[in-house]
């Protein structure tokens, strides 16, 4: 694992949290929208906070798919669950919400989970298969 790859995993979490928070805030400001009111549903994406939120969610998806191109699914999912920890910290220190003991316990469990999985290898494919995949990938790159 290189520093750059850790940065991609952090990107998955940070972009997801920022995107979700922005969309959530924008939707709350927009008020309740009926499912039958199609123009409002479409127009809501032009609200600045929602548009910015969608951009962050696109960045999240780019980082997520990039991470899946070099790491196992069972590595990426627990490793990027630091987003739950970030979300709780944002709730506590920026939104000044009251965080119950159970939620702090949840944050501790997730932190241990992240620690446990990131100590191990990111990819567990059999080496022969990986080698074959690499060879076919480079063969595909040939003009």
């Amino acid at each position, binding site marked *: 694992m290189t520093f750059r790859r850790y940065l991609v995993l952090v990107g998955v979490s940070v972009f997801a949290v920022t995107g979700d928070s922005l969309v959530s805030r924008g939707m709350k400001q927009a008020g309740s929208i009926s499912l039958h009111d199609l123009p409002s549903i479409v127009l809501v994406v032009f609200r600045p906070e929602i548009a910015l939120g969608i951009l962050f969610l696109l960045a999240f998806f780019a980082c997520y798919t990039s991470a899946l191109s070099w790491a196992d699914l069972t590595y990426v999912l627990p490793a990027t*669950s630091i987003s739950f920890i970030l979300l709780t910290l944002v709730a506590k220190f920026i939104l000044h919400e009251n965080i119950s003991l159970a939620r702090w316990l*949840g*944050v501790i*469990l997730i932190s241990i*989970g992240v620690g*446990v999985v990131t100590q191990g290898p990111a990819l*567990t494919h059999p080496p022969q298969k990986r080698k074959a995949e690499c060879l076919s990938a480079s063969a595909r790159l040939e003009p």
Partner: protein
Amino acid sequence: MSQLYAWGAVATIVTASTAGDVLLSRGMKQVGDVAELRRNAGLGTVIARVLRNPNFVLGVSCMAAAFYAMLFGLSWADVSLVVPASTSLTFVTNAIAAKFFLHERVDQRRWMAALLVAGGVVLLAL
């Protein structure tokens, strides 16, 4: 009856999002390391290869299905049940699916991480 609907929604969300994650992961492994590919062939090639991958397209469709199942689920049942239940169960079903469909070596460490995160997510919703 409403309990049945709620758990039906949870089961649908979990199934669709697990299928989405597994297909996306398989598709991206077929595409190969995107950073390396971008260095060798440029960003356009990366995007074209990702968008042309059938597993990727199917995976994104499954994720969209999971999103809509979540929307419908939320109109039938409480957020406090549907969101934590589906999120935490997805960590466990993904570990099982990754073992059988992606042939990842899900060892004790990976199991422990998946279960710790799943448990943590449930506690966060309390």
